[in-house]
């Protein structure tokens, strides 16, 4: 995943340093010396390499901002002459970039090329090839076809110059002019743009751009990393990661006990019909025992409040986070799952396998009784088969509807059409394989069996007589022949023979899915979307998918995948300048990020929060463990209407929920989430702006306050315009009212669209 250089550097201990290149050289030499001494013994003292990739520079003519370009057919590998010419729509041309450092195997699909026409529309042009310029290895020719890749708009009219830019690892280049149809036209250069002629020697490496950002070195990257890998940055975690580095922190996380702050609620399995002493109705003459029995055992209350407490306070953040992401792939929901104990048994499968092996997760999830209930496998028999689980394990959990390349882009047939991964017959055949398993109610094989209640804790058990014994034909793809055909059972005359046949069939069917070439890119892309960015470059997906595939039989496969996602150069860096980079914070994490950043406690601040915040997240459109359907809260391929942006979380960002977000911020900043004064007292939830107040009191200009918010919430990306506007609002608050100043500033940043987007 990492370049050789980068992974080598990562094992060198480096002391934190101040700004400036001289210091840096010194540190490098110094650290090599110490590396020899320390490399074996002090794993925790390792420090991270510079997370920042250089910003690509798109080369222009030497005396203007016109793009240096040549028709692809005419390119012979050298820098072309600076001809002022226009290109036809559909043409293949070569443009030139520099100031990039490529990893091995990093090629054309790491780049995206966007143009904007004079009417403001943006198009994406496919990048076909990347080659270094002969004799000038620091310059690359990028072959681009002038055709809209997304197909959202009409093709760009040949109305003269457009602005073109190259995007790489979440960083955008400068924009230069390119004539389509003819040269000229009304589009204006970006402010302060200037010619970027081809450099005659390699650019200096490791430009230190720390000075542009607030806070300590790489503090922007650290905040971004915490937003990706946890339920939100905290000042304490920031200090710790600054000390040990993100790689050492990751290793800690992989080995940390879980849950770390609060054990899973230990709830008994209850009958489907609540008994008199647990029905929430004390008027029936039988008081509930324990007093909140009904609320704690029926419904998702216990699972949700546990989930939030662990998110607020748990140390094992990464496992909690990945399990949460997995729960949005392998979806089950409290809309159909009756009890928190059922949901917890399901969540344990996710968390146990969050850093494990995907195939093992597939197996455990297939036999999980909660999943069996939600997608009806627990009721699917040879005489009354139900195809729900068979369909979703293919469509949503592993393979998707259409054949993918390793980088997650669609394969196409000779006519340019998408290629379906399977048809209804395949679903029917998987359905047959999944028949016969049901809830574990055997007196000897089911340790958690509870009289009078359905066993939602132990894996489902085969009822041999309900298993389909006919032949099955499964997914077809190159290499599928070893798993595709399951013959009819020829010797199924005994229970034991049927059991063997059924279990073998199940494993073969899961292998048949797991071995499908779609699984690695399909899962990698969704995990990247959940952790880092909504629309990753194909190269990023490919790097992660490659790790997925390289660790197919590794019991710690997902650990490697998660590392690959979080340490990828497209994820790392102090700031991402690419305008399409990032993701909308989903409501659950919007709330946890605010809570963790500002010392979340109970409403009266004397205790920890009890994690009862579901009413609040629900108003924002997301209720933990209550996805509206197996399609999750939002689909991974959601495109925002009126745009061509793939941004899943926007599916639940509506007029109603956007106002709700602002109102939740109002509640937290100016008030608190109140205790429930009715039956079942809760502790409520509040945040503290004490540290912000101190800054507001110390500096009447408001600048320190704004610096702090810019660093902690926006990792240094607050625009001057935004900053000045908030300062203006602060001036309407008396400087003596530090509390209201802190509240005002925090409210404005937290409600801003700039903060809704994690980038």
């Amino acid at each position, binding site marked *: 995943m990492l370049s050789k250089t980068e992974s080598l550097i990562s094992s060198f201990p480096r002391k934190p340093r101040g700004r400036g290149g001289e210091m840096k050289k010194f540190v490098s030499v110094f650290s090599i010396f110490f590396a020899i001494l320390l490399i074996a013994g002090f794993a925790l003292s390792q420090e991270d390499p510079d997370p920042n990739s250089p910003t690509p520079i798109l080369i222009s003519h030497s005396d203007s901002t016109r793009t240096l370009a040549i028709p692809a057919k005419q390119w012979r590998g050298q820098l072309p002459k600076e001809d002022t010419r226009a290109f036809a729509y559909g043409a293949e041309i070569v443009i030139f970039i520099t100031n990039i450092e490529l990893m091995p195997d990093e090629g054309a699909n790491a780049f995206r090329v966007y143009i904007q026409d004079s*009417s*403001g*529309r*943006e198009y994406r042009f496919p990048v076909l090839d990347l080659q270094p310029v002969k004799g000038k290895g620091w310059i690359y020719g990028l072959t681009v076809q002038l055709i*809209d890749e997304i*197909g*959202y*708009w*009409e*093709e760009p009219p040949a109305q003269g110059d457009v602005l073109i830019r190259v995007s790489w690892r979440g960083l955008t280049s400068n924009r230069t002019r390119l004539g389509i149809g003819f040269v000229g036209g009304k589009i204006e250069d970006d402010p302060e743009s200037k010619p970027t002629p081809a450099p005659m020697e390699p650019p200096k490496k490791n430009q230190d751009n720390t000075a542009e950002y607030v806070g300590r070195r790489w503090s922007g990257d650290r905040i971004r990393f915490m937003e990706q890998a946890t339920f939100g940055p905290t000042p304490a975690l920031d200090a710790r990661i600054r000390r040990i580095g993100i790689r050492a922190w990751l290793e800690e996380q992989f080995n940390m006990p879980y849950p770390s702050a609060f054990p899973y609620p230990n709830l008994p399995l209850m009958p489907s019909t609540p008994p008199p002493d647990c029905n929430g109705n004390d008027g029936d003459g039988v008081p509930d025992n324990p007093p909140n029995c009904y609320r704690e055992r029926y419904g998702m209350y216990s699972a949700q409040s546990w989930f939030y407490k662990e998110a607020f306070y748990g140390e094992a953040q990464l496992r909690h986070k990945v399990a949460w992401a997995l729960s949005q792939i392998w979806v089950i929901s409290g809309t159909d799952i009756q009890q928190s104990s059922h949901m917890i048994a399901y969540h344990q499968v996710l968390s146990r396998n969050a850093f494990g092996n995907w195939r093992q997760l597939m197996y455990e999830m297939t036999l999980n009784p909660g999943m069996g209930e939600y997608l009806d496998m627990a009721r699917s028999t040879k005489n*009354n088969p139900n*195809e729900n689980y068979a*369909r979703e394990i293919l469509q949503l959990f592993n393979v998707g*509807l259409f054949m993918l390349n390793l980088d997650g882009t669609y394969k196409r047939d000779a006519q340019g059409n998408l290629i379906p991964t399977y048809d*209804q017959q395949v679903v029917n055949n998987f359905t047959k394989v999944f028949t016969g398993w049901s809830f574990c109610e055997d007196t000897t094989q089911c340790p958690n069996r509870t009289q009078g209640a359905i066993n939602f804790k132990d894996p489902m058990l085969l009822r041999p007589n309900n298993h389909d014994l006919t032949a099955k034909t499964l997914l077809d793809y190159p290499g599928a022949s070893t798993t595709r055909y399951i013959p009819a059972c020829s010797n199924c005359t005994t229970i034991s023979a049927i059991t063997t046949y059924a279990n073998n069939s199940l494993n073969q069917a899961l292998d048949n899915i797991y071995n499908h070439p779609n699984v690695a890119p399909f899962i990698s892309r969704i995990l990247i979307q959940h952790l880092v960015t*909504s629309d990753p470059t194909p190269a990023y997906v490919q790097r992660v998918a490659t790790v997925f595939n390289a660790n197919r039989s590794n019991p710690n496969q997902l650990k490697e995948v998660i590392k690959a996602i979080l340490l990828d150069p497209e994820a790392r860096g102090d700031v991402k300048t690419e*305008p*399409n980079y*990032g*993701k909308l914070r989903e409501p659950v994490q919007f709330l946890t990020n605010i809570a963790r950043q500002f010392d979340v406690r109970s409403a009266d601040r004397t205790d920890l929060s009890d994690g009862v915040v579901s009413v609040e997240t629900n108003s924002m*459109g997301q209720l933990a463990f209550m996805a*509206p*359907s*197996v*399609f999750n809260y939002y689909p991974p*391929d959601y495109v*925002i*209407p*009126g*745009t061509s*942006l793939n*941004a899943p979380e*926007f*599916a639940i*960002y*509506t*007029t*109603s*929920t*956007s*106002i709700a977000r602002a*109102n939740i911020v*109002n509640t937290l900043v100016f008030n608190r989430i109140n205790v429930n004064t009715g039956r079942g007292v809760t502790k409520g939830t509040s945040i503290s702006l004490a540290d912000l107040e101190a800054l507001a009191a110390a500096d009447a200009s408001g600048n320190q306050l704004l610096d702090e918010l810019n660093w902690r919430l926006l990792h240094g990306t607050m*625009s001057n*315009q*935004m900053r000045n*506007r*908030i300062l*203006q*609002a602060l001036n*309407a*608050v008396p400087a003596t009212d530090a509390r209201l100043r802190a509240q*005002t500033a925090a*409210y*404005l940043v937290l409600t*801003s*669209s*700039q903060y809704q*987007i994690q*980038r």
Partner: protein
Amino acid sequence: MKRREFLKSTCAALTMTALATQVRHFGLLSAYAQKNESFPPSDYRALVCIFLAGGNDGNNTVIPNHNDSSVSNYSVYYNARNSQGLAIPQNQLLPISVPRMGGLTYGLHPALGPQTQNGTTIVNNGIYELWSQGKMAIVTNVGTLVQPTTRQQYQQRTVPIPYQLYSHSDQVAQFHAARSDQISYTGWGGRIADRRTSQDNPNALVPMITSVAGAQLFTSGQLTLPLSIAPAPTGLNQVLALQGYNSTSASQARRAAFNDLRTYDLNHQLIAAASHITEQAIQASNALQSYQEVTVTFPNTTLGNQLKQVARMIKKRTDLGVNRQIFFCQLGGFDTHQNQPSTHNSLLLQVSQAMRAFYDEMVVQGLANKVVQFWMTDFNRTFNPAGSGSSVGSDHAWGNHLIVISDAVTASDFYGMNTSNGTPFPTLAFNGPDDADSGSNARGRWIPTTSVEQYAATLAKWFGLPQSDMPAVFPKITNFPVWDLGFLTAT
């Protein structure tokens, strides 16, 4: 159809610069303006979708109530459903005389009529009365189709079949999208709004579509975002109210900054998209600061409260500057695999009470012929019951019967294409001429004879979508010979 083709097919008249500028600045709504129509409509019309989520059992909603053996009669129904406990006794059916069936009597589920008490607030006589008043159309055997499909074609797969039949999520999506050949990212409500907003609602303060049941595929167009608001009892002036502001100068300054921040950093497209939606919310919030309460008493139920909020919005239509509106409501719980009789009864009772209250309110508002309530649902349920006794239910099936309520209904009757028996009502026979299932285990899943597109296009035509725009909004409508099923007449 790619988006580009969609745009190309109708936007020729519009300069692309204008389109792009508006989209860029998220002033999307006039993007589909048509040059040949220059005036907004002179009347008001609204479509109100009521989605029965989970798959309503149409076989227990509209039931043969006659003894004519030339078509499926009550005995056929009784014999198929009674032994397991799913048949409704004939003397409880609410009789309707159906002209299209030669005047034969059919029966509606008793929950659609007057009730004394059943756990749900009873505020009116239900929708059954509206049949005799000529206000109820029943579109029979509607379902997802790619093209007209015979049983033989279905069984031999000689025509394309809707993807993932009997799957909730996929079939719901196909009803929302009105297309079944491929996954769609837009819904038919949204696509109508894409086309019509600038023409019909040039001065609107709110989007053409309002959902009182969250963001839905149905409400999303290529350019159109719905207004999403909470149902009653939340006041219409509270649904999008920003909390925490007062009249102090500090608070006012914060509010002004809050508004200004939305106009910054729009070069980052995700930020711009979020700001656009919030901007829409704030505009609507400003427009909804006051409202008038409705006159009619609505039941205090999920659907009752949704339709009450819709009625409040409609009452405010003049202030909001809207001439055409589409609303989306939804009631869940129809996936009655078990315990169907009691569950289904209470759900249909809720539906009937809420729809009748809404209808009565529209009468009060003088809009009974300008507002159409129509059903959509995942699919029908198996004619063959699942299980038996008190836990009896039914499973996922296909073609279904959908109710439409309005004074714009042409006449109370069955509508839709004829099945193989020469009538619009399917033959209720396992392994029979309309059953998608075959063999001895056939469970009675009617192959639809009328497509979702035809049903939706009929509604869209009444709403004012020109014939020439039909193929763009309903890309597969050209596979079907009839685009107007005739159940609505504009008055």
